[in-house]
């Protein structure tokens, strides 16, 4: 078969076109892959604030930042834990007065949630919590009188803030346990913004802070939500760009008596663990202390009123009921896990 010059040129041109096409496809694919490749990261865990703190930092040569993050949680704990002698909350509980702008800020935010939730969330619920003592060796099912007595000391309206001065009624017991982890996350976020990190995801006892990006493509952070009835698996994943995620569930601390579960999310209005069919509420928002407070408030309020509260704060929420039905409220990118 004779091939003249023209045909030869055609073949060469065609081959070049094909080669160019293949190269273009490969180049595009490489760019895509490299934008999806995660930045280098360092992951560290430690015990702080009575729970597990995990910090994963993304960027070049990270590592020192993780230590700093974990230490800051330890320091915060010394400041706001009612268990720490001399802490701000300890002094408030013992002398009913303390001067601290940080504590004042925290109380202001919490009291607003208390007001908006009609008292379903209340920092002064401490007297009630101490009575039930769930999660300690003294846990018990109190009788009606004991509950009535404790309820007399519960009431956020008596927890007053005047500038930096925080005061409460005699006998009241303030416990920041419900919001301490979220507040720690807020603090950590300020630190992260000042750092050189490209991204970070921090978990303070299950309260999550997601900051920055984990790869060039800026893919969302994937926060798994624990299955309320199976601690080894997760029920779904929430995807967020940046923000805070908190969960309140009836599985964290509880005891069972006569076939009934008494969990630690007490309703400050009734004195008993909230019983409204929910077993877990996850809140996503742009403030750590709010995501903590709202998750507790929404759990106590139940699905309908809880959804209203979340909407009011512009937060996203995920309600899981005892049949594992899931309802989402607000702008939440949540995907249920397939089993």
């Amino acid at each position: 078969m004779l091939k003249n010059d023209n045909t030869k040129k055609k073949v060469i041109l065609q081959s070049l076109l094909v080669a160019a096409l293949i190269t273009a496809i490969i180049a595009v694919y490489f760019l895509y892959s490299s934008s999806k490749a995660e930045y280098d990261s360092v992951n560290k865990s430690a015990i702080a604030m009575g729970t597990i703190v995990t910090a994963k930092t993304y960027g070049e040569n990270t590592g020192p930042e993780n230590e700093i993050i974990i230490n800051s949680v330890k320091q915060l704990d010394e400041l706001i834990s009612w268990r720490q002698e001399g802490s701000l909350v300890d002094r408030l509980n013992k002398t009913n007065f303390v001067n601290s702008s940080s504590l004042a800020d925290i109380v202001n935010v919490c009291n607003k949630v208390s007001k908006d939730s009609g008292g379903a969330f209340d920092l002064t619920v401490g007297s009630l919590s101490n009575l039930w003592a769930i999660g300690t060796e003294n846990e018990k099912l109190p009788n009606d009188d004991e509950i009535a007595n404790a309820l007399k000391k519960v009431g956020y309206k008596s927890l007053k803030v005047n500038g930096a001065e925080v005061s409460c009624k005699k006998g009241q017991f303030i416990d920041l346990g419900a919001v301490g982890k979220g507040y720690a996350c807020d603090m950590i976020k300020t630190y992260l913004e000042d750092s050189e990190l490209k991204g970070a995801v921090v978990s303070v006892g299950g309260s999550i802070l997601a900051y920055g990006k984990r790869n060039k493509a800026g893919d969302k952070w994937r926060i798994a939500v624990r299955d309320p009835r199976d601690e080894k698996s997760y029920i779904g994943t929430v995807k967020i760009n940046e923000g805070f995620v908190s969960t309140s569930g009836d599985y964290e601390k509880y005891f069972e008596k006569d076939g009934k579960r008494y969990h630690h999310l007490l309703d400050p209005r009734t004195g008993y663990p909230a019983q409204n069919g929910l077993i877990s509420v996850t809140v996503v928002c742009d403030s750590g202390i709010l995501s903590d407070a709202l998750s507790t408030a929404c759990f106590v309020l139940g699905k309908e009123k809880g959804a209203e509260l979340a909407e009011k704060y512009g937060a996203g929420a995920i309600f899981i009921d005892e049949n594992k039905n899931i309802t989402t409220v607000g702008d939440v990118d949540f995907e249920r896990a397939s089993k």
Partner: protein
Amino acid sequence: MKKGDALIIVLCAVLCLCLFASSFFPGKNLIAEIYSDGVLVAAKALSEIEEEYTLSVSGCELELSKNGISFLSSTCKDKLCIKYGVLSKKGETMACIPNRVVVSIKSGKDKNFDAVAY
């Protein structure tokens, strides 16, 4: 070679390159995942292994060391699994199909979530 042949070859070549693209990004924190009957029964971070040890999974004996994982012995008939030798790179896979044991090496980052809220 005809036009159709060339087209098929080109398509396959491009597909190959795409599939291999991910291997060019070396994996860190390699984890050996062991599946039995489709269920993940063990996931071991290779770099955390100090001394080599053996694991028994449905009729297969696997040896794990910080250099990789391999089949030591198996109750299957063809013993193809043992012929694989040591697995040590991200994305590598081997299996003992009659015993339904599959081993694959993943990069530590291949979990599909970044944190757990609880």
